C-alpha cells in the first residue's frame, strides 16, 4: 500500500474519490483499471475474431457482447467518499442490470411462484416492506426485519445482512431463494423454471453470452441491479448542495445528532461529509441485556460479537418502518426514546453507548422532535418514486 503525498490527496479533482489509501479504494480503483484492461483485451479478441473467415460465427459473437453500464454517481458521493465496489468478475452491463431487475420483480424464483424479491423489498418502501417480519412462501415468517436496499455498492467491507453473514452482494442474493422462511426453492428448480421460460434464456444469453442458466448468473444479475439502486437526493442532500434551506427544527436536529453531549449519533451513523449515513459496521447498541438472536456472534463464533448488528443507514426512514434488526419499533419516536432512556447494559455493549448507566443520552423532548425532523430530511422521495 502506497503512501501518497498530500498534493494528490488534498484536491478532490486530482485525487478524486479513488485517491484514498484504504484497501477498499484500491480495490475499487484496481477493478476499474483491470476492467478497462479486460475491455481492451475483449476488443482485441473481437478484432482478431473479425479477421476470421468464419463469418456467421463472428456475427453471433458480436451480437452478445453486453454494453458496459456506468453508474450515475451523485456528485456528493463522488466528491466525499471512495468509489463504489464493483467486482471484477461482475461488471455492470445494461443487459445484466435489465435481467437483474426482471428477476427481482418475478416470482419465478420462489418454490410456488408466489413471491418475488420485491414482495419484501418494495420500491415504494425504499426496497423494504412494512412488516416486522416478512411473509415467506406459505406465510412463514422470518426472524429479522427486511433490510432496505440502496447505496449497497458503497458497503466497502462487503458484509451484507443484519449479521454480516454474506461476504458479497452476489453471495447475499443466493440466500433468500433457498431459505425455507423466504422463497423456499431449490436452485435446480429455479434454474429449470428459468430455462423453460420463453424469455429468460435469451436474456441470459444477452447478459452473459450463454443461454445456460445457473444460480451464479442469477445472483450476478440481481446484484448488478441492486448496485444501481442509488439514493442521493434527499432534502438534506439538496441542503448540502446549497439548493434548499433547513427548517429551524431540522437545523437543531443535525446539531443534536452531531453533539457528543446530546444525541451523539455521528460515530456510527456518520456526518455531512459522508452521504451514506452508516458506518456499515456491527455494534451492540444496547437493545437488550440478554440475546435471543446473537447476530454477528452467531456468524463469527466469537462471543465478543454477540448481540451485534449492522448499523443501518438513516436514509429513507420515512419509508422503512418498523425499525431495528427485529423490527421492534414502529415509530422513530420509539427509536429515539430507546437511545435517550432505554439502553440496557450487556457484556458486549459498544463503548460508544456512553450513557448506558443513565439509560441513554437523555435529551429533551424538543431535541427529540428536532432530531426526528432532521432524520426525516434524509428521506429521498425521488428514490421511492422511480
Amino acid at each position, binding site marked *: 500500500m502506497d503512501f501518497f503525498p498530500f498534493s494528490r490527496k488534498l484536491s478532490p479533482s486530482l485525487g478524486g474519490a479513488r485517491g484514498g489509501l*484504504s484497501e477498499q479504494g484500491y480495490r475499487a480503483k484496481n477493478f476499474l483499471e483491470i476492467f478497462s484492461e479486460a475491455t481492451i483485451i475483449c476488443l482485441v479478441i473481437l478484432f482478431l475474431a473479425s479477421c476470421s473467415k468464419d463469418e456467421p460465427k463472428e456475427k453471433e459473437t458480436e451480437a452478445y457482447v453486453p454494453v458496459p453500464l456506468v453508474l450515475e454517481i451523485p456528485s456528493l458521493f463522488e466528491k466525499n467518499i471512495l468509489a463504489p465496489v464493483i467486482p471484477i468478475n461482475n461488471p455492470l452491463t445494461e443487459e445484466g442490470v435489465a435481467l437483474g431487475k426482471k428477476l427481482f420483480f418475478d416470482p419465478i424464483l420462489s418454490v410456488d411462484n408466489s413471491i418475488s424479491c420485491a414482495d419484501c423489498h418494495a420500491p415504494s418502501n425504499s426496497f423494504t416492506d412494512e412488516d416486522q417480519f416478512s411473509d415467506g412462501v406459505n406465510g412463514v415468517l422470518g426472524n429479522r426485519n427486511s433490510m432496505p436496499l440502496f447505496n449497497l455498492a458503497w458497503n466497502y467491507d462487503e458484509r451484507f445482512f443484519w449479521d454480516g453473514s454474506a461476504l458479497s452482494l452476489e453471495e447475499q442474493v443466493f440466500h433468500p431463494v433457498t431459505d425455507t422462511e423466504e422463497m423456499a426453492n431449490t436452485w435446480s428448480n429455479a434454474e429449470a423454471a428459468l430455462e423453460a421460460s420463453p424469455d429468460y434464456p435469451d436474456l441470459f444469453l444477452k447478459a452473459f453470452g450463454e443461454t445456460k442458466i445457473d444460480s451464479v448468473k442469477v445472483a450476478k444479475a440481481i446484484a448488478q441491479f441492486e448496485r444501481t439502486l442509488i439514493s442521493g437526493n434527499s432534502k438534506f442532500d439538496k441542503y448540502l448542495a446549497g439548493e434548499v434551506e433547513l427548517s429551524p427544527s431540522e437545523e437543531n436536529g443535525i446539531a443534536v445528532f452531531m453533539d457528543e453531549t446530546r444525541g451523539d449519533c455521528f460515530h456510527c451513523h456518520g456526518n455531512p461529509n459522508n452521504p451514506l449515513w452508516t458506518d456499515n459496521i456491527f455494534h451492540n447498541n444496547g437493545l437488550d441485556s440478554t440475546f435471543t438472536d446473537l447476530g454477528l456472534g452467531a456468524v463469527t463464533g466469537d462471543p465478543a460479537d454477540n448481540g451485534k448488528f449492522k448499523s443501518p443507514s438513516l436514509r429513507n426512514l420515512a419509508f422503512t418502518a418498523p425499525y431495528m434488526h427485529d423490527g421492534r419499533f414502529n415509530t422513530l419516536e420509539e427509536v429515539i426514546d430507546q437511545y435517550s432512556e432505554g439502553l440496557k447494559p450487556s457484556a458486549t455493549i459498544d463503548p460508544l453507548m456512553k450513557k448506558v448507566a443513565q439509560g441513554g443520552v437523555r435529551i429533551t423532548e424538543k431535541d427529540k422532535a428536532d432530531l426526528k425532523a432532521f432524520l426525516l430530511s434524509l428521506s429521498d422521495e425521488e428514490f421511492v418514486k422511480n
Partner: protein
Amino acid sequence: MKKNITLLFLVSIFLSACSDDDDSIGRTDAKARVGFNFTHQWGDDVVTKNDFNTVQYVNENGEQMSIERLRYLVSNITFKRFDGETITMGGYNLVDLTNGTDLSFVLRDSITVGKYSNVSFTFGFDNEDNQNGAYPDLNSVLWNVPEMLGGGYHYMQLEGKFMDSTDTETGYQYHAIRAVDRSGEELAFEDTFFTVDLGAVEIKGDANIAIKMDIAEWFKNPVKWNLNELHSMMMPNFEAQKMISQNGKSVFSLGEVATQ
C-alpha cells in the same frame, strides 16, 4: 568477455561508493523503497486484535481495562540527513488495529540510501492538513470531527471497557482530536498533534521500519490517567485533549529496521 569484465569493474566501483560511511560527502544515487509497520504492546506484552475485548490490562492508576477498538492517524513522514537536510515524504495512514488494516504501508517515493539522523512523523494531522472533509478515504470510515468542534479529523480512537469504582464494566472512549475550548463566544483551539522523533536510522536498501506503540503509555506519563474521573465525552473536553497530547509523547518508539 572483455565487456563483462569492464561492467563488473564499474559495478564494483559503484558498490564501493555505496558503502562509503561518510554521509556528508558520500551521497549516492541509490534509492530504496521504505515501508513502515506498526506494532502494539501493553508494557512488555504484544497486543493484537486477538487480545481485544477482554478486561486484562491494568493501567498506571490501577484500573483494570480492555481494548475494543484502536485506530489512529499518522502523517508527514520526514527523514533528516546528518547535513541537516530534511526530506518530507508527506502523506498519511490510518492505522486500524481493530480490523487489522493499514498496519503497514510503503512510501510511494523511494528514498536515497544512506544514514539519517532522524525519522519522524506527525501523530494526527497538523493544522494545514486537518481540512474538514478533504480526504474521501477518511470520510468513508467516518473519521471526521463534528464542525461544532472545529471539524477536520480524529487523531485517535481508543475504546474499551474498564472496571469502575463500583466494579461495574464501563465503556471508555479515549478519542484524540485538536483541543477546542467552547466556553467563549468563538471556538478557541490549542494544538494537540505532535511530532514523534524515532531517532537515527540507516537505510541500506529496501527496508521496513517498525514503529512501536505502547498503549499503556497513554494512561501513564506525565498524567496518571483516572478513568473513573474521565472516561467519556473527551472530544469536547479541552483539558482532556491537552492531557492526551502530553501523554502521547512517550507512546511511540522505533522498532527494528529490517533491510529486505
